[in-house]
């Protein structure tokens, strides 16, 4: 698995360049042309990224989620769902780096092979950060009316989170 993930990118680059040379594309000039488009792309996504990182980070700083979730504590102890996993489930659609940090904390406190460690791993692997991706992709092309995109994306996240709980219970419970 590890070797595969190490050679796949070099092979990919090799193949594209080889194919380009074979088809008599001026690969260097074409690369520069594309790279210039990339630079403009970065320019366009910078405000979006700053806006999202700012909002998500001060939200995390405020510890609001921890406070709000502590009310649910008695209910959770009753249902056997580990309390420490909840902030991760809630933050999954908002911030990938925040959930990664929580997962790491769970590994340190409970170990990666504990039930909660496996659950956290599955949660981290199962969905991407919907709100961030939406803001980034639509922001880059200046689409402001996202129509039904967010509800559908969040629905997919919710189903993924529920599925992660159920599947982990079945496999490792």
């Amino acid at each position, binding site marked *: 698995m590890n070797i595969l*993930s190490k050679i796949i990118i070099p092979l990919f680059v090799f193949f*594209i*360049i080889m194919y*380009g040379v074979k*088809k008599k*594309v001026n690969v260097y000039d*074409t*690369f520069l042309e*594309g*790279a210039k488009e*990339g630079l403009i*792309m*970065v320019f366009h996504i910078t405000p979006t*990224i*700053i*806006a*999202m*990182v700012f*909002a998500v*980070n*001060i*939200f995390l*700083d*405020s510890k*609001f989620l921890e406070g709000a979730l502590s009310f649910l504590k008695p209910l959770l102890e009753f249902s056997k769902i580990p309390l420490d996993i909840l902030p991760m489930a809630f933050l999954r659609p908002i911030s990938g780096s925040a959930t990664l940090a929580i*997962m*790491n904390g769970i*590994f340190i406190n409970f170990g*990666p*092979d504990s039930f909660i*460690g496996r659950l956290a*791993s*599955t949660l981290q692997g199962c*969905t*991407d*950060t919907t709100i961030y*991706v939406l*803001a*980034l*992709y*639509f922001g*880059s*092309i200046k*689409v*402001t*009316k*996202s*129509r*039904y*995109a*967010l509800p*559908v*994306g969040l*629905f*997919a996240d919710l*189903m*993924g989170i529920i*599925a*992660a709980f159920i599947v*982990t219970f079945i496999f490792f419970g």
Partner: protein
Amino acid sequence: MVNIIWAGLIIIAILYSLLNGNIEVINNGILTHATSGVNLVLEMMPLIILWTGIMKIAESSGLLKAFARFLNPILSKLFPSLTKDHKALGYMASNIAANMLGLGSAATPFGLKAMQELQKDNPKKDTATEAMITFLVLNTGGVTLIPTTVIALRMMSGSKNPTEIIITSILATLISSISGLTLDYIIRRRKKK
């Protein structure tokens, strides 16, 4: 909608910290988080520039089109509004492939480029098209076959079997993506009527 979430996050954060006497943290945050944002941009920038350059070669040589045609049986069902050799399809296919392999940072430039191609034949530039939304749902579902970051972290934390979560992740991912795409499909069908 993003509008509301963005405002909500900030308003809740400031109000909650004021009530808790924790406002100093927020004060520092306001001053430093813009830097974190710029740092993230700087982290992504080299990869975006490099990949858009390399993928431009794939586009000019016709490789991207060939790749899109290869995945066409699946993609044409998901994106009925696009023509068979639409440029966006090649970028979408590359994006999905990179995501599946857990190469998230390589996937982003392809995704951005796909959106750009879709935007070219969007009649209302400020409004998302159906194809854009389907692509976004497919993307946020995160069709990850090999969650490389998670595996690496498990390994570093001393897991006896770091890869054992691959199968549970794939199952959860599949359920997430299928649910999202199904809901997207239902909404599209109802809008047509």
